[in-house]
């Protein structure tokens, strides 16, 4: 299911240094992450989930959905967890994931009331055609205003470590989105220090 290119030990060796803990924003972005046919199936299943609108004026507006059993088999399965473990240099035991849809006027705001614990996030993007002017980028920002933003592209997997003081938000989606939505599966890893892989 995972693109064979990424399972090649030589490719993995090239990716792993991107996730060294001494980096300010340890992160990797893997394009064409799944084989094309499998991606089409997974995307269809993600888009077909039962999304519910979540809105709290001072913190967020988006739709989200629990993953279906079929999607859990992939995202919580051994192939995916082992792959992640090799990249993040620790044993990934499980994932806490949800599917999100960000349409026009959706956003998340960083608030003092909701401070996320440091951890490793994964974002699997299944967004279709997207007008860049519509914004909706996922941004990671530290307390010194340094930041990274993730590209918006279907079949892209991003793995980002949130160190202490690093927060994540999704830019306000403006009118250029029209009726289109940013669709991602997003969440965090549960891991323990890796002995050897």
């Amino acid at each position, binding site marked *: 299911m995972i693109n064979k290119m990424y399972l090649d030990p030589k490719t993995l060796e090239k990716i792993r240094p991107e996730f060294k803990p001494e980096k300010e924003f340890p992160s990797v972005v893997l394009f064409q992450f799944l084989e094309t046919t499998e991606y089409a199936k997974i995307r269809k299943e993600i888009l077909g989930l039962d999304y519910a609108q979540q*809105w*709290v*004026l*001072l913190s967020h507006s988006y739709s989200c959905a629990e993953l279906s059993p079929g999607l859990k088999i992939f995202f919580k399965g051994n192939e995916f967890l082992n792959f992640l473990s090799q990249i993040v240099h620790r044993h990934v035991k499980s994932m806490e994931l949800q599917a999100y849809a960000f349409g026009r*006027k959706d*956003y*998340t*705001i*960083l608030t003092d009331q909701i401070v996320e614990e440091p951890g490793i996030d994964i974002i699997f993007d299944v967004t279709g055609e997207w007008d860049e*002017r519509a*914004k909706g980028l996922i*941004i990671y*920002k530290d307390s010194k205003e340094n930041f990274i933003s993730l590209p918006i592209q279907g079949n892209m997997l991003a793995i980002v470590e949130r160190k202490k003081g690093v927060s994540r*938000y999704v*830019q*306000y989606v*403006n*009118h*250029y989105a029209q009726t289109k939505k940013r669709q991602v599966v997003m969440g965090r890893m549960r891991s323990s220090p890796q002995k050897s892989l």
Partner: protein
Amino acid sequence: MTLLQEWISPQYLQLKKIEKFRSAFLGHTPFPYLELKGFFRKQKIMKVLPALRKEMFIRKEADLFQFSQTQDLVSTKSKILQKFRSFLSSPELVTYLSNLTNTNLKAKEIDMSGTLYQDTDFLLCHDDRLEGRKIAYFVYLSTLDRKDGGRLLLYDQLEKVAASIIPTFNTFAFFAVSAKSLHVVEEMVRPKQRLAISGWFHDQ
């Protein structure tokens, strides 16, 4: 001619009207606010607009907002904007506003900057609270249509829009800053400019 007469349109200096505005401010929901159209004398405010256009606007983008803003105009080199700022922070105007809002505002110490919202710019919900801020104010220098976006939306405690102000040239609007003063600048959805001078009056 007094300083107030020099700057403010005559209808806003009639004692009976001032009392009416004061009642309106305090009675407005979801929190005390007031919108005074045509507030400044035309010959005065007409000079402010081109002066502000000459200021340098810096792009601001974060989770909560996207717009352009000048530095605090305390440091402006424009004589016109210096005079405008001097008037807004004068004991005369501050006493006038203190009376309208039933507050005890401090003269000479105001925050004041120019803001420019263009297509897709916005300011998401917040309450403006910061130590000393008592009254948030806006001097609108553009006239927008509802369809342009850019309205100031005031939210109630149930997180519903309870009042809105569509920017109109030469409108002086203000509201009391508190935990209740949840407000938003709606996204601009057309290629128009929303230019304003805004800031805060502080308490004594």
